[in-house]
């Protein structure tokens, strides 16, 4: 719907209930209910994960870089850190929160850049896949490190 044609048009009749001044193509396009509530929820999740990230990311940065000599954890220090249950929960919480926030954020940028609904749906699917893979990878990596 990129604007009305400026050639004079034959008036083909006004739909019932149309208000005075009706111009074909000027109607407001509608979503289905699910898409609308999804859009609203996505914003809320993005905001919530953003706020949570202040806690999780702050904790992560302090724990990883300001609690050890030299600012970088060597292998043993990493394993020792992850062995603490609270630390493990914090790191996994960070993993989930950051992936969700990043995925929603990238999708929001693509909504503006992509030309149409189909491209957007495909991009959303790809983002979802990358997010899932990253999540599985992150959890797997944690288990491997804890195990070894």
């Amino acid at each position, binding site marked *: 719907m990129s*604007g009305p044609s400026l050639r004079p048009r034959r008036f083909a009749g006004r739909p019932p209930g149309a208000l005075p001044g009706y111009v074909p193509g000027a109607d407001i396009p509608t979503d289905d209910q699910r898409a609308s509530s999804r859009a*609203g929820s996505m914003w809320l999740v993005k905001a919530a994960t953003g706020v949570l990230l202040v806690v999780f990311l702050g904790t992560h940065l302090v724990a990883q870089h300001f609690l050890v000599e030299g600012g970088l954890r060597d292998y043993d220090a990493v394993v020792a850190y992850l062995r603490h249950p609270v630390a493990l929960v914090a790191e996994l919480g960070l993993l989930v929160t950051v992936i969700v926030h990043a995925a929603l954020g990238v999708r*929001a940028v693509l909504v503006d850049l992509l030309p149409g609904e189909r491209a957007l749906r495909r991009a959303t699917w790809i983002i979802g896949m990358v997010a899932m893979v990253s999540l599985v990878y992150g959890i797997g990596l944690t288990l491997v490190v804890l195990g070894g």
Partner: protein
Amino acid sequence: MPDPTIVLRVWRQQGSDASNGRFETFEVQADPRRDSVLDVLERTWAEQDHTLVFRHACHHASCGTCTLLVDGRERLPCVTALHDVWDGRSSMTLEPLRNVPVVADLAVDPGVMLTRVAGLPLPYVRAVEADARSASGVTDDADVGTAERFEDCLECLACVSACPVASGDPDYLGPAVLAAADRAIEEPRSGDPARILDLVNTEHGIWQCRSVWSCSAVCPAGVDPAARIMSLRRRVWRGDHRSGSAP
């Protein structure tokens, strides 16, 4: 002392295809103390080029017709004093609004946006927030009724032009329509608030907004469309005017 000369760069374009457009330069006399930008444009048309296409009507910021870009910023040239935007030396650039189809040169076609606003519907009068009569001590005046005034929005489409989201998404309803929707729900004179909220509660409606706030920054009438878009979001989250269908 003669009036200084201003170098005016005006975008010329035939029809809605911008690829044949270009800037044309005029030198025109201007009095920074008295002239508005529109005065300069009209003088250019009158004295140098009658083929210049631009819109103007009320000349006092009521009709929202003359909106254009002055040095890249959305303004109403009828009330923009030349001395506010011109340093006396540099050239001044006039371009048509962004994100709205161009008819020719500086004139744009606001048809789709205006019709959407009218279709919401947005009535053009509203109750005044503060009653001037009570402020002046007049009470118990049953004959006068509720004081009314015109809606703030001039439908000048400066907000639509300023919005970077609108420049990327032609289906975005835009700040003008969304702000009108919030007003139509806030004061529903003849409309159905539930239906209006459903109309804008979409991916290309209120959820497309990226909180840039450029719309409110350029609005010449104090509509603050950005705040109204946020207000619509809160209406949805609170579950106001929930229509019959389950989410």
